[in-house]
Structures are given as C-alpha cells and as structure tokens.
C-alpha cells in the first residue's frame, strides 16, 4: 500500500509547526502518531500534499501536575499516559483508558493530541476526559485558546480545531482525593476500538453519592456526558439499587450509533451494562 506523494516537513517546535501550517495551507495534514492518518493515506482516502510531522516536538510531550491541574501534552503517547504515575494517581480512569487503546506498538506511537484532533467517535479518551471536565489547549496564529472538551468535539470526525491550529495540551483538575474513577470498555473485536466505552468518576460521602460524572465514548457521533445518569446518582444512597435505576437513563435522547458490530438497540443496551459496571467499580 502506497500513499500519494507529499512533501514532508518536520516541526521541531510548536512555533515551527504553526509556521509550516500557515505556509502549507489547506493541503497540509498534521502527522502525530500516524495510526489513523497513515493507514487512511495508504488507502488513498486521505491525500495531503504536505505532511507536517509534530511527533518529534519535545515541548508537547509531557505529563505533569501544576497545582491542582493535571497537564497532558498533546504529544504524550498512550504508553506515556498509561505508565505515568501522575495519571495513575491523579486520574486513574485516564491511565486505564490509555492502556486499553490498540495494542502495545500502537500505544507507543499514538498520541493524545492525535486522538482528539481525529475525533473518531469510537476513540477511547473522550469518555474519560469528559468525565474529568477536561479542557483542550490549542495554539494558532492568534495565540492560545482553551476550549472545554465538550465544546471542542463537534461531531463525527469534526472538532472546533481551526485548520491553522494545533492541539498542544489537555488539562483537567486532578481527581479529588475521595473520588474514584474507572473506564470500562466493550471492544470492537477486529479493530479494538470501543463499541461502548464508559468512564465514571464518583465521590461517595458517608454512604451518599456527593458527586458523579459519567461519560460515554463510541455510543453516539461524539462522546457525551450522561447527565441524566449523573443527576439520578447525586445525593442518593451509594447502593446497587441507585446504580441500576440511574443507568436506565444512559442513552435517553441520544441517537445511538449502529454498525455491523452493534445495532443501535444493542449498543444502547451495552451502554447501560457498561455504565453499571463502571459505577459498581467505583461506588
């Protein structure tokens, strides 16, 4: 399999990358981990004239805590995130998510920024990031923008990222010390993307659920927060009965995806099953 010809530009810094983007215009694509882009180019579904390689930009490959904020550079790989002690201790569901993406070789190359920019509805991260109220930091010629992930994801392979911008960071508040979080995934058996991914972060205070955040990947055209579930949990007794009642609302009003691996009816059912599993793991 052979891609169409293109010019290759290696960016050493974010500033470099932005300059190259400006120069190359519409026919440029950003190459991060490449695990979605390069196969698409080999199949000639994507035929960019310029490829701007940001995989070597060290200034965006980091994971660190700044005060109460967990900062994941867009260039951090899935392996970086899965193995990061900061992520494991301050946002365990994100580490869990990263460890369930693709396979070890894919995790060594694929990046946080690449996943978010591609906006594949079956991608894993968005569920955990939505549940963490994460924000996406992008840079463009006009400077930096910070966008709540919920507003960043617009739809199927569609984001708020402008063509002259790149994602540089994802940030979120570290999980409260009394919160527990998890990501539970039902895999598409061939690609190992999610058919349903559910992230849950819950705080239980003296037997009552004081806070709950629940989000889904791969259930609809874009990842979403299941607020009806959250509302049905908050303030309630931390019990199986509460969970069972809450997850019934998991896909209310949601247009659930359908494909040959899962009809919308079955996927909707799985969403409830996985919400229940995720919530049972943290309550």
């Amino acid at each position, binding site marked *: *399999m052979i891609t*169409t010809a293109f010019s290759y530009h290696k960016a050493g810094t974010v500033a470099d990358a932005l300059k190259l983007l400006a120069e190359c215009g519409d026919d440029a694509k950003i190459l991060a981990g*490449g695990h979605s882009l390069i196969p698409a180019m080999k199949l000639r579904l994507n035929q960019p004239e310029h490829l701007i390689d940001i995989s070597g930009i060290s200034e965006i490959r980091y994971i660190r805590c700044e005060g109460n904020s967990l900062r994941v550079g867009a260039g951090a790989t899935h392996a970086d995130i899965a193995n990061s002690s900061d992520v494991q201790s301050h946002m365990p569901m994100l580490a869990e998510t990263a460890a369930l993406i693709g396979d070890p*070789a*894919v995790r060594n*190359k694929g990046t946080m920024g690449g996943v978010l920019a591609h906006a594949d509805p079956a991608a894993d991260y968005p569920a955990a990031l939505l549940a963490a109220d994460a924000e996406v930091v992008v840079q463009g010629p006009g400077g930096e923008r910070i966008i709540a992930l919920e507003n960043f994801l617009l739809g199927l392979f569609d984001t708020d990222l402008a063509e002259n911008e790149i994602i540089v960071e994802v940030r979120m508040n570290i999980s409260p010390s009394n919160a527990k979080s998890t990501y539970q995934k039902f895999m598409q058996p061939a690609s190992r993307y999610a058919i349903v991914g559910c992230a849950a972060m819950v705080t239980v205070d003296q037997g009552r659920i004081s806070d709950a955040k629940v989000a889904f990947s791969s259930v609809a055209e874009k990842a979403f927060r299941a607020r009806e579930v959250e509302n049905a949990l908050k303030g309630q007794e931390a019990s199986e009965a509460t969970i069972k009642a809450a997850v019934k609302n998991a896909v209310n009003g949601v247009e659930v995806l359908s494909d040959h691996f899962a009809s919308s009816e079955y996927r909707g059912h799985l969403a409830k099953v996985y919400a229940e599993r995720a919530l049972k793991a943290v309550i």
Partner: protein
Amino acid sequence: MGVPIQVTVNGKPYKAEVEPRQLLVHFLRDTLRMTGTHVGCDTSSCGACTIHMNGEAVKSCTILAVQADGGEIKTIEGMSPDGNGTLHPLQEGFKEEHGLQCGFCTPGMIMAADALLKENPNPSETEIRHALEGNFCRCTGYHNIVKSIQYAADKMRKEVTHG
C-alpha cells in the same frame, strides 16, 4: 525529492535518501534488503512488521522512513545477542516450543515479545496473550507462541540470576 536520513539498524549506521512517502518497512525491506520484517496488512493491525525503534516496539508499516532519521532500529536480523548466529532466548524458545509454522508472523511476534519481556520479565499467560493483541498468527492458534515466550522468559530470568 529525496530526503537524506541517517539511521542505525541493528547497530550499523546507514545513510540514505528516501522519498517522504516511503514507509519504514519498505526502507528496511527494499532499500536495506533486510526482508525479515514483513507486511501482512494495510491497517497497522497484523503486527508482522513489528520492529523496535529507539527501544520501543512499533509497527514499521505505519511510520515513514523519514521519521526514523537519527533513530536506532532493531529488527529480527539483529536479535542474535552476539551478532554471530547465537540465538536469542526468544528465537530459541520459538524453535523449542514449535512457536511457528509458516514463519511469516514470527519476526513480528518475536519483536513484540522482546518488548514485553523487557517490561515484564515474568509475565503470566494472560499478560503474554494481552501483549500479543497486535500480532496475528493464523497457523499456531497462539498456544505454542505463548509457550515459546514462557520458555524465553524462564531462560532469561535464569541467565540474570546466574550471570
């Protein structure tokens, strides 16, 4: 059109001019004529092209040769510990435990397993199977591949203890 690159492959430095779209696997196979790394699919799914780049297992069909510039590559041809035909414990394990039949997936399997054992010298059966989730074998049903990796892990642990 060609972009100059320098890469070290199995300890030896190479300089070449590559077309930007040339995949690393094609650089290894067609330019360097190291054909032990195979292409089995178009979608980064089968793992036959697994190599190590800068110490990590990667799929060389999803990396451009230009991206390997300045990097260290290890392929199946570089697995011999003395570079002189002595088999690596994984290579030995695959032979001893009949971990291969047609041999086409084998180089990728060995490279994936090598990465696993570096991280986890004493993996359980479940951990081995999980670590191979990016590598297809259509011949063995994986049973003997798991045993081959267990064989190598045992041997490498003993070598560490005694060596």
